[in-house]
């Protein structure tokens, strides 16, 4: 993974010192709340009623075992012994005292970590597919470009006060596990007719109150022009994005109100000036960044060794985990495995100090000392020898991390909701738990196959409910918590926004409603048809009828 040199370390130290000074002046009453607000946000610190929160950046999801151990330390010294993986490959800690935050950031800096630009109206952490570099269907490893974008966007002086937050995702795989099309800028690595690899760039995607799928701005940008293309989009947005209404301030609204063609022509006018200038990437820089993401020292191994076959034959729980949580790897004899943080009874994405330490140990023992956080709040060990899978699985059991539910109904993506978040309309964690309890049956989950279920506690959509095959949104109805259900969303290549089923439901109705939706699916599906495919084929009417008719 990327390692800091003297330049990176120095800038990070300076940032920690700067924020120390700012926090001191705030404490001394020299900075008003309003003046301190964007400063602390751009250092990841939310101060909210229920639980203050610090969001720490995990650039494109990559963590080393050393960093995991530091996070474990932070979870006990500054939080109550756990953290929370977010839907943007970051980690959050609750309850840090403002005056402790500079010290906490100094700890992070020791392991090349920070909370820079993890909130506020600036360019946020760039995200990518968690299988970058090991996927079998990859055009090119996206991580070098993520790092290039990270550096360009970090401390970018022109874009620290955008109309609203700005999120970029990069995807080099065909599958697309990065939700690329629902980002302010979504970047696909593509190969053109001449065989050159470059970028297709979308803009104007996003979730929140007005969910939109991004539209194509550049059909092909060569590698050297990546940063000038991004800078052009950002400059038009910074100048022209709406600032009069925070709900209309995202770039998606600008693209819509200006019209795609008009927006594009403005971007191209900027690009004509910037292209070929000092932002032009040299091959040397691309190679330098790529060198940090070279293949680790793989051994020559056979696929499906005898020991694995024996274990699969003898342990049915392991076989179940293997079939759900193991992903094919580009190298023979290796596997990418996903550790599910969705065990029933545990809040989705929550990670305890012990689990952080265990992850560090597993990373060192099985996967070259690195893990990756996924945008579905799970953790990937990307380079595990197939012969080690069984012993790895056994260790996972000791840390309550053996849930074999990846990509099933119970692999619920869920925001912190009303239990933690001051903005929530409704709780989300108890909804996830109630659903998990109802369907916590290995055979049933296998029977239902691949389904994504996403829950957000309010319109801000941190749980990405619009792009869940089943989406659940907490709404406030005259002071009571209700839940709106949508169907047919997807965040993959076939990205789509879910359609709202109808009137919302009370909390206790939800598990039963989900049950009815699944009944309709099972009755209508053709062989091998996934839930979302059935929804797309038969439409939402049959689901609607079942859920609302039986209600009366």
């Amino acid at each position, binding site marked *: 993974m990327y390692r800091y*040199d003297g*330049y990176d370390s*120095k*800038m990070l130290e*300076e*940032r920690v*010192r*700067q924020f120390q000074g*700012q926090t001191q002046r705030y404490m001394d009453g020299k*900075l008003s709340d309003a*003046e301190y607000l*964007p*400063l602390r946000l751009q250092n990841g610190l939310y101060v909210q009623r229920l639980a203050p929160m610090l969001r720490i950046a995990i650039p494109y999801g990559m963590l080393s075992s050393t960093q995991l151990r530091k996070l474990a330390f932070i979870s006990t010294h500054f939080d109550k012994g756990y953290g929370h993986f977010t839907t943007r490959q970051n980690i959050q800690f609750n309850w840090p005292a403002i005056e402790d935050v500079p010290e906490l950031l100094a700890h992070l800096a020791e392991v090349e970590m920070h909370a820079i630009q993890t909130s506020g*109206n600036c360019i946020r952490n760039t995200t990518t597919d968690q299988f970058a570099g090991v996927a079998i269907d990859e055009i090119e490893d996206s991580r070098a470009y993520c790092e*290039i974008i990270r*550096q*360009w*966007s*970090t*401390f*970018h*002086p*022109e*874009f*620290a*006060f*955008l*109309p609203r937050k700005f999120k970029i995702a990069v995807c080099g795989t065909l599958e697309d596990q990065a939700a690329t099309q629902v980002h302010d800028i979504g970047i696909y690595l593509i190969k053109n007719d001449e065989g050159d690899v470059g970028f297709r760039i979308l803009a104007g995607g996003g979730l929140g109150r007005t969910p939109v799928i991004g539209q194509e701005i550049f059909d092909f940008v060569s590698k050297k022009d990546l*940063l000038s293309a991004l800078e052009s989009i950002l*400059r038009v947005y*910074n*100048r022209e994005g709406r*600032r009069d209404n925070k709900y209309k301030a995202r770039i998606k609204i600008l693209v819509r109100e200006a019209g795609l063609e008009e927006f594009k022509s403005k971007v191209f006018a900027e690009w004509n*000036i910037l292209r070929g*200038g*000092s*932002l032009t*990437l*040299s091959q040397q*820089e691309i190679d*330098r960044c790529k060198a940090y993401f070279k293949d680790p020292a793989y051994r020559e191994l056979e696929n499906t060794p005898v020991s694995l076959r024996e274990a699969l034959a003898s342990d049915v729980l392991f076989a179940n985990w293997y079939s759900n949580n193991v992903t094919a790897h580009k190298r023979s004899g290796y596997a990418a495995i996903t550790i599910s943080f969705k065990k029933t009874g545990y809040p989705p994405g929550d990670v305890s100090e012990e689990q952080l330490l265990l992850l560090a140990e597993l990373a060192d023992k099985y996967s070259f000392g690195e893990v990756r956080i996924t945008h579905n709040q799970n953790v990937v060990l990307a380079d595990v020898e197939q012969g080690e899978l069984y012993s790895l699985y056994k260790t996972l059991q000791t840390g309550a991390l053996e849930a074999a539910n990846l990509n099933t109904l119970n692999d619920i993506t869920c925001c912190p909701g009303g239990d933690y978040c001051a903005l929530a309309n409704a709780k989300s964690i108890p909804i996830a738990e109630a659903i998990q309890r109802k369907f916590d049956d290995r055979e049933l989950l296998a029977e239902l196959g691949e389904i994504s279920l996403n829950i957000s506690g309010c319109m801000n959509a941190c749980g990405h409910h619009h792009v869940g095959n089943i989406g659940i949104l907490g709404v406030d109805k005259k002071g009571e918590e209700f839940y709106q259900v949508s169907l047919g969303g997807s965040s993959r290549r076939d990205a789509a926004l879910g359609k709202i089923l109808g009137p919302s439901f009370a909390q206790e109705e939800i598990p039963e409603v989900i049950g009815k939706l699944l009944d309709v699916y099972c009755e209508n599906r053709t062989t091998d048809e996934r839930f979302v495919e059935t929804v797309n084929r038969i439409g939402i009417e049959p689901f609607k009828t079942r859920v609302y008719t039986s209600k009366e």
Partner: protein
Amino acid sequence: MAKLIRNRAVESDDWVILQAASGIDVFPALRGRKVILPLSLFLLEEEEARLQLSEIGVWLDSHENIKHIAGRLNDLPLIALNFPVFSDGRPYSTAKKLRADLKFGGEIRAIGDVLRDQLCYLERCGFNSFAIRADQEPEECLSAFSDFSDTYTSTTLQDQPLFNRRT
């Protein structure tokens, strides 16, 4: 005379800024002075202003577009960009365009809600003078310019991004 920061030093301000609603009737009282006109007045009454005043600059509010003065840059020693509120980021891009794309060589001044913690980035976008908000001490703000010793991306102070300079 009010104090301001120019090229990282505290100086007294020898310019007068006219409010947005001002008209030519105020010119006689300012005869011989250096005056910063609001954009609309500059566009309407430049000739009259040049007759009566010693030097003129122009200021743009955050939503105003520099295309209106892009052809006149050689005749302007100073362009001021207003921050209605410090978190309005538009003037950063305006200044960057003036300095980097249009090669404006005169003074680019930040006016309005200008505070210490924005100075470092403002300077990197092309501003070189700062009329710090009246309740702040300009002397106490000077250290802000050295908050960061380097930058990743290209700025108006350092055209080469770090990736072309790493050794």
